[in-house]
């Protein structure tokens, strides 16, 4: 009987999902391709990818990662390294070109097709995730938050001072002899320091309109493709052996490890997945924003993405999508364009853009106190955040129909 209801609900849900995807696909045809709205939409989708990545770490596995910006940085730098004139001395000044067409194919520097860069970004961020996670995830939860924050800051600072780190000679000395490793020239550095790497190659894909800064439609579709991919990963992981193990670790770590769940390995899978997804979005943003700049990689960004996850609902896939879209528009449209004059009109002497920090901070506080499960709560989270087990629903025998089957 309940299974009939549930099947109905599931069909309902599928219908909703299909409608949402259809809407997202058709949306760009109702807006001018060069309009700010479309630019903001591309940004919003890229943030959805980020937020869904962080959702695997914080929402599914319950690991508070305050340094998620690290993966944005590494993904974006992968794009900058492999798709710009930054390493202009590479290959003796001729540059390296793999599967690129158009202007990029004649420029010096390394220029590699976006899809390959995407793969490289995933590989780099996953490796970084494992390196950071392996020692860190042994710690207790709140220490994990601080150590990930520190790693995020370290990566941001290294990006800002990376012009002092010469990699050419080291690279050549250790790896240059291998046939696959390119010669970067003797003055190559890790980053361009505070200046940033710009311009960055545009995405270049067959069968699509050219990707330019005036035409956001192709960018939109690539971002949407990434969103769908990441959504798929989120949903599949949630309803799997791993998703169940993450839930168990979140609810009672001692019981979970006693039931045979390896803590560090299981957490590492969440952390590595989240890292990889953040790296994907980072590579995309590197190309879309046309710059890879140390000032992008600040703690505020980690909190911005975290606020999306929390607002939408920790662990709730659809909630996080909505949270990300909302906050992205709040940040790129509502605050600067719509409400910015508001304090002035009220006789106050500041711009709203100056207080964007506080707005995200405020969201964290308000949501946690008033509705910790977020806008669209994930099934089990609601009870969890209200401290179940200690009180309320724990009372046995009151056959309340709380249940939704797994």
């Amino acid at each position: 009987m309940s299974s009939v209801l549930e099947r109905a609900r599931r069909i309902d849900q599928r219908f909703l999902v299909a409608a949402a995807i259809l809407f997202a696909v058709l949306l760009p045809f109702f807006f001018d391709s060069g309009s700010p709205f479309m630019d903001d939409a591309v940004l919003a989708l890229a943030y959805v990818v980020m937020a869904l990545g962080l959702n695997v770490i914080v929402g599914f596995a319950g690991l508070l990662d305050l340094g998620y910006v690290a993966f944005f940085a590494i993904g974006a730098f992968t794009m900058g390294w492999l798709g710009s004139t930054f390493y202009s001395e590479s290959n003796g000044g001729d540059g390296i070109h793999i599967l690129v067409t158009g202007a990029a194919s004649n420029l010096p520097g390394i220029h590699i097709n976006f899809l390959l860069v995407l793969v490289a970004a995933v590989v780099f961020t996953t490796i970084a995730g494992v390196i950071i996670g392996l020692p860190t995830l042994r710690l207790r939860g709140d220490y994990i938050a601080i150590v990930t924050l520190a790693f995020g800051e370290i990566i941001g600072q290294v990006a800002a001072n990376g012009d002092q780190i010469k990699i050419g000679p080291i690279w050549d000395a250790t790896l240059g002899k291998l046939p696959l490793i390119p010669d970067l020239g003797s003055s190559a550095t890790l980053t361009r320091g505070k200046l940033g790497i710009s311009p960055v190659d545009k995405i270049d894909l067959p069968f699509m309109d050219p990707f330019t800064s005036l035409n956001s439609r192709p960018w939109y579709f690539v971002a949407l493709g990434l969103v769908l991919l990441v959504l798929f990963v989120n949903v599949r992981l949630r309803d799997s052996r791993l998703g169940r193990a993450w839930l168990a670790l979140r609810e009672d770590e001692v019981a979970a490890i006693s039931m045979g769940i390896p803590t560090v390995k299981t957490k590492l899978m969440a952390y590595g997945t989240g890292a990889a997804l953040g790296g994907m979005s980072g590579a995309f943003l590197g190309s879309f924003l046309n710059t890879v700049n140390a000032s992008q990689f600040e703690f505020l960004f980690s909190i911005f993405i975290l606020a999306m996850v929390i607002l939408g609902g920790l662990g709730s896939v659809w909630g996080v999508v909505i949270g990300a879209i909302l906050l992205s528009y709040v940040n790129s449209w509502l605050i600067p364009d719509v409400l910015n004059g508001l304090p002035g009109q009220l006789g106050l002497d500041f711009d709203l853009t100056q207080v964007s920090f506080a707005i995200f901070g405020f969201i964290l506080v308000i949501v946690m106190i008033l509705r910790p499960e977020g806008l669209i709560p994930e099934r089990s989270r609601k009870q969890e955040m209200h401290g179940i087990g200690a009180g309320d629903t724990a009372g046995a025998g009151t056959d309340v129909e709380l249940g939704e089957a797994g």
Partner: protein
Amino acid sequence: MSAGPEKAAAPKPAPEVPIRAEGLTKKFGGLTAVSDVDLELRAGEIAAIIGPNGAGKTTFFNMLTGLYRPTSGRIRRGQRDITRARPDQITALGVARTFQNIRLFPTMTARQNVMIGRHSRMRAGIFGSIFRPPWVRNEEREVWERAAEELRFVGLKPELLDRPSTALSYGDQRRVEIARALASDPEILLLDEPTAGMDPRESGELADFVLRIREERKLSILLIEHDMKVVMGISDRVTVLDHGELIAEGDPAAVREDPKVIEAYLGRGATA
């Protein structure tokens, strides 16, 4: 029910002594919770650990299952030294447990709880979970059914299968915990006060059920128990701890007469 749900074929012959503690000691700061305890569990037996509150029984279990690292001494699982092994490795080696103060996952259903118990016997990793190839689908479905079977075996009413574990009665929660432990196909089952909070009738039923588990699942059971009636009724051997030390060991009837044991329990009226 036929001889329990399909058991994963044990490749190696069952070792002589499934689990053995040698000189096991645990100190918490100045307090010695378990002091130099030797104990072995023989294949197919039900052994009980008794002792007054705070004697160190649960701490002993926590060391056997890898939750606490012993201050000194060793633990062997068959031929293997598992003193420094992690809890998940110990579970994978066929040791499962329940907790004194029930520790089910509160927001999960009874069935999901038992599926967690099966985790160590499943293979789906990150790519399997994302791409969900046929073998992963099969694995998931089998575990789903297996969980229901385990819950039926422990006597949970079928309509409670997909209830959140916190909505179950106390006795049912204890059953789900046992089912969760059994789901990992253990060769050794550690039960920490399984009758705590039960009335005499329920305790009696549970004692019978423990015997049945041993018969049908062919495993060895180590149990911590305060209820002397249960202890005397089902255990082959009894070990008594007091202030962390092993003060007596042997045949239940003999242990009950041991003056040291009587002294340890003096004033507690636990010798039923």
